[in-house]
């Protein structure tokens, strides 16, 4: 491990910490300064039947009577020490609420990512083997089709076809194997489109490189060329793309959980939104940002080790394949 790599890693780590802290502050500002007022909308709602003393007690406990900057400081220092505060509705620690539902969402999200990867590889590698005459164009069209279908529609179609018509799973039991599998498919399809797009573009680019022409001129077959020359250089950048899709994976599970009636982070968000339980929302959104930043940090740190073509110069990563030279931070893939 060279000196340049360590400098790069330290720089990247510092950047990640700053972004996480700022993301927390940003969320706090959105949640607490924008018009909606949690005190009147939740506590004074006659349906909840809080008495004036109880309201005063909750306000004091949440620190809502203090100036906003004090609240922010309190909230941020709690976040740094792992204390996410109390739910305004159920009077339980936010961390407990999240810990209860996190495993279910993690199962769904990882299954969804697995589906996305398998599908993306099938489509992208397929374009190398299906001749132009026999539907290569169709295969190439899949990513843009998948990107145009909302994932709740995919979920509903799957429930209708496989749940209602074929009776493969029952919607009443959302945690069964089949229900989880189909939820993962609904979640994975739009994400597979983004991965497939990058894979196809990379394969096309590698196939035009001089080394590929040389290999072809030596009489190498299509399959050998793919397996021993194109596969590795074209697939490595996907590590970065996967890291970037983590955000969509989290957002997508919110909708997929609603469609399939699963309990998870998504249903917790839904419930907290309808009851304006701001501490829970604040915690979940910040957690989403933490996960996204950490996953991208790991991907950025791993990538130079995986791909020897990436050179680190003076603490900056130079990546010949997917990098947008003029941007700072993680490169965002623009989906065509």
């Amino acid at each position: 491990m060279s000196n340049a790599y360590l400098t790069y890693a330290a720089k990247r780590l510092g950047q990640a910490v700053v972004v996480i802290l700022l993301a927390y502050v940003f969320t706090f500002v959105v949640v607490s300064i924008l018009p909606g007022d949690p005190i009147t909308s939740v506590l004074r709602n006659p349906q909840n039947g809080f008495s004036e003393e109880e309201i005063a007690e909750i306000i004091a406990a949440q620190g809502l009577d203090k100036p906003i900057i004090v609240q922010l400081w309190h909230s941020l220092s709690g976040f740094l020490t792992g204390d996410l505060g109390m739910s305004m509705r159920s009077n339980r620690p936010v961390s407990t609420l999240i810990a209860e539902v996190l495993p279910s969402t993690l199962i769904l999200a990882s299954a969804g990512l697995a589906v996305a990867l398998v599908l993306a590889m099938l489509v992208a590698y397929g374009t190398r083997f299906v001749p132009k005459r026999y539907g290569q164009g169709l295969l190439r069209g899949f990513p843009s089709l998948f990107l145009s279908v909302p994932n709740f529609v995919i979920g509903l179609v799957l429930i209708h076809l496989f749940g209602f018509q074929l009776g493969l799973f029952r919607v009443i039991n959302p945690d069964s194997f089949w229900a989880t599998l189909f939820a993962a498919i609904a979640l994975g399809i739009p994400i597979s489109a983004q991965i497939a797009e990058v894979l196809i573009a990379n394969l096309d680019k590698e196939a035009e490189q001089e080394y590929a022409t040389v290999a072809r001129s030596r009489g190498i077959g299509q399959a050998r060329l793919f397996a021993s020359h194109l596969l590795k250089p074209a697939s490595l950048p996907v590590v970065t793309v996967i890291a970037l899709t983590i955000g969509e994976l989290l957002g997508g599970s919110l909708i997929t959980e609603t469609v399939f009636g699963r309990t998870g982070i998504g249903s917790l968000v839904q419930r907290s939104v309808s009851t304006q339980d701001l501490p829970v929302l604040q915690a979940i959104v910040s957690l989403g940002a933490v996960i996204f930043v950490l996953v991208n940090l790991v991907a950025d740190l791993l990538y130079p080790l995986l791909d020897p073509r990436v050179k680190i110069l003076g603490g900056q990563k130079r990546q010949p394949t997917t990098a947008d030279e003029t941007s700072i931070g993680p490169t965002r893939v623009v989906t065509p």
Partner: protein
Amino acid sequence: MTFVANSTLSRGSRSGWAEALRMPPIVALSFLITATIIAWSIAPQLFTAYSPVVGVPADKLLGPSAEHWFGTDHLGRDLYARVVYGTASSVSSALVAVVIGVLAGGLIGLLAGFLGGWVDVVLARLVDVLLSIPKFLLAVIVVTAIGFETINAAIATGVSAVAIFARVTRAEVIKTRQATFVEAAFLSGGSRWFILWRHILPNASRSVLPLAVLQFGESILVIASLAFLGYGDPPPASDWGLLISIGKDYLKWPWLVYAPAFITIVTVLSVNRISRWLRKTD
């Protein structure tokens, strides 16, 4: 002053226009579909005689037929009419979202790229922060904070698109700033703001256009998702996402989901195809 470089530039793009109007048939079809959708949103009453709100209870849950193209819903309302009348808010809110994204993101990107220095550093961090929060979660908390309405869902979607526009505009501005004709404009005494307005902005906007079209399609999807979760206007409205959400409770009559879903998908596909074509002809 700077007109030599500039006039050759604009002449080049004008002769390119006639060339650019020739398009593959699939793109022409995409334009046709998009035009139809826009017509639906401007004058829905021209496309259907049925009311989107008042139904005939005796005709409830009929299948698609010549009379009711998309069938009828649980209150006997014509689903095609509901889709057509729902277009205005589904499509115009996506437009609002894109406008917010382009204006706010474009401004951030323009300032960051053009001024450079500490402004760039600060704005780049802001963009990093916006990118780090999962887009859909960001849209959900913004719409929660400002209230459940379709226009607020549009604003939330726009906010979540600011980062991507900022990033692309910044990259374009930096690329243009280093071009020789901009250097020439500086040398011949053009002021910073004149050059920004006259040279950098028009050139940077050229690659922002395909992105804006693409984001328009994506915004339709995000707003449909927010409406599906019930964060848009409540039921007498007929946003596409809301129609699908209502339809999911009547899966025995699947056209209630499939018809609005089909229209949504076809619209987004057309918009995306146009965006790809714009980028290729650029």
